[in-house]
């Protein structure tokens, strides 16, 4: 499955770099400017504050089958929000709605709305490809293209067009540094990405997703195929990425949710059962169902 941040192939993308920064961030002193200038974590928002992603009375259907029931959730900017719940609870479905990945599935329809940065993602004037540049996605299984490391990273920018070589080089270095892969990959940028280890491939996919400078990064079980060391690297990376991006992660690992997220949402049978700070959810959840799930009593 192609990465959401490398949508391409549609002529609609031909609006050059309008949705992208006018040029990739200049690289100075080996540090990407945007990362270097980034503020520390955003101040903690009250739970009721409008989120960067707002889900409002959202129902979602696969044909006759309703997958999400009346979801309301406010996801804060530049924080990590974890979606947890047993398989089939709707957490991945909701995640995939944020960049309209489910549009690709026939017979899907919805009620209610999803807003990103205050604007609905279902605006008829909005290009879905433009949305997917703003909302990048990393999948459970790493999916590098059978190209070089360099070409993988700059894929989205090449598709968008209008970049000179030195701009692509700078963007590549920025993205690989931001995804903690630069040191391992800098001497083999023009070799096949398929030669990287599983953990490196997953970080490459993260680099590819952030090269186009999205606002939101969606991660669907990004570590489920990785060993503990590679998992730990991705988790450290997630904590760094939240300085620049709003991250939403679906995970089956309760401890991963505890380690990386600021807020946690627990879903069950297509409903949002509880949404609160991660501290609260993992020490003193408000609902018995949440407690039973995170302590392994069902699911």
């Amino acid at each position: 499955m192609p990465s959401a941040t490398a949508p391409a192939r549609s002529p609609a993308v031909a609006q050059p770099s309008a949705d992208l920064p006018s040029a990739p961030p200049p690289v100075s002193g080996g540090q990407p400017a945007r990362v270097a200038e980034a503020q520390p974590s955003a101040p903690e928002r009250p739970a009721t504050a409008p989120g960067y992603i707002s889900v409002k009375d959202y129902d979602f259907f696969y044909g006759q089958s309703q997958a999400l029931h009346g979801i309301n959730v406010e996801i804060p900017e530049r924080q990590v929000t974890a979606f947890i719940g047993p398989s089939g609870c709707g957490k991945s479905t909701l995640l995939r709605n944020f960049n309209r990945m489910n549009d690709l599935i026939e017979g899907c329809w919805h009620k209610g709305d999803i807003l990103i940065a205050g604007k609905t993602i279902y605006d008829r004037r909005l290009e879905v490809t433009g949305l997917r540049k703003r909302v990048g996605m990393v999948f459970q299984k790493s999916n590098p293209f059978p190209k070089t490391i360099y070409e993988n990273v700059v894929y989205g920018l090449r598709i968008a067009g209008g970049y000179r070589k030195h701009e692509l080089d700078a963007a590549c270095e920025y993205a690989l540094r931001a995804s903690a892969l630069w040191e391992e990959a800098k001497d083999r940028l023009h070799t096949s990405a398929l030669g990287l280890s599983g953990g490196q491939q997953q970080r490459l996919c993260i680099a590819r997703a952030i090269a186009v400078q999205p606002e939101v990064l969606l991660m669907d079980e990004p570590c489920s195929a990785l060993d503990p060391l590679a998992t730990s690297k991705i988790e450290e990376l997630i904590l760094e990425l939240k300085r620049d991006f709003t991250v939403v992660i679906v995970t089956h690992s309760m401890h991963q949710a505890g380690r990386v997220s600021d807020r946690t949402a627990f879903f069950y049978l297509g409903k949002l059962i509880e949404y609160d700070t991660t501290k609260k959810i993992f020490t003193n959840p408000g609902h018995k169902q949440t407690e039973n799930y995170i302590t392994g009593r069902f699911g």
Partner: protein
Amino acid sequence: MNQHRHFDLDLAELKRSLVTMGNLVAEMLRLGVDTLLQPRVAAREEARAFEERLDQLDNQIEERCHQLIALQSPLAGDLRFLISAMRITADLEQIGDLAEGLCKRATFIARHQVVRNPSMLPTLGALAADMVRRAMESFITGDLDAARSVLGSEREADAATKLAYEAVQAFMMQESACIREYTHLLRAISHLEHIADIAVSIAEEAVYIHRGTLIRHHHSEF
């Protein structure tokens, strides 16, 4: 939707060990308070036998808590239970030490000169023991009213301690020949006050386990 877990059996077994430890401490406390009211020399040895069993249980429970935290990575209520179990074990062990201290003081008095007890002493002894009993009941059953009643008794225990202290000070002035015995008696009263404080700490742990809120230093919010 609930399913049986081996971890639940481990937690239940741990809880049983804590109940055993609580019962042992209650017996030691009864021995300590009885001996203080009617000093006798043999009590010291009896207390020592209890103390050995208590130390053993303390080690076992603490080690088991460490193992379960490391191996099961508990969360939410399970995590709160294990954290509090470690604290309650330490609390019970300390009450055991203080109860042994009561026997030690009483033995000294029995060996030398049996002196007058302040009239408040039986009340204070019974109150401290009852506070420990109610705190343990709250921990075991989740009865938060029991925890609340322990917190409510704290002031009563402080007042009884003050009265007992003042009475002993008056005896000291009247019977200066027995200053050493009365000093031991003062220490024993101080042990009882401390036991009542520890009962409050156990009640706070019970609230943390069953309600998830830390109320230490914030009793008014409970």
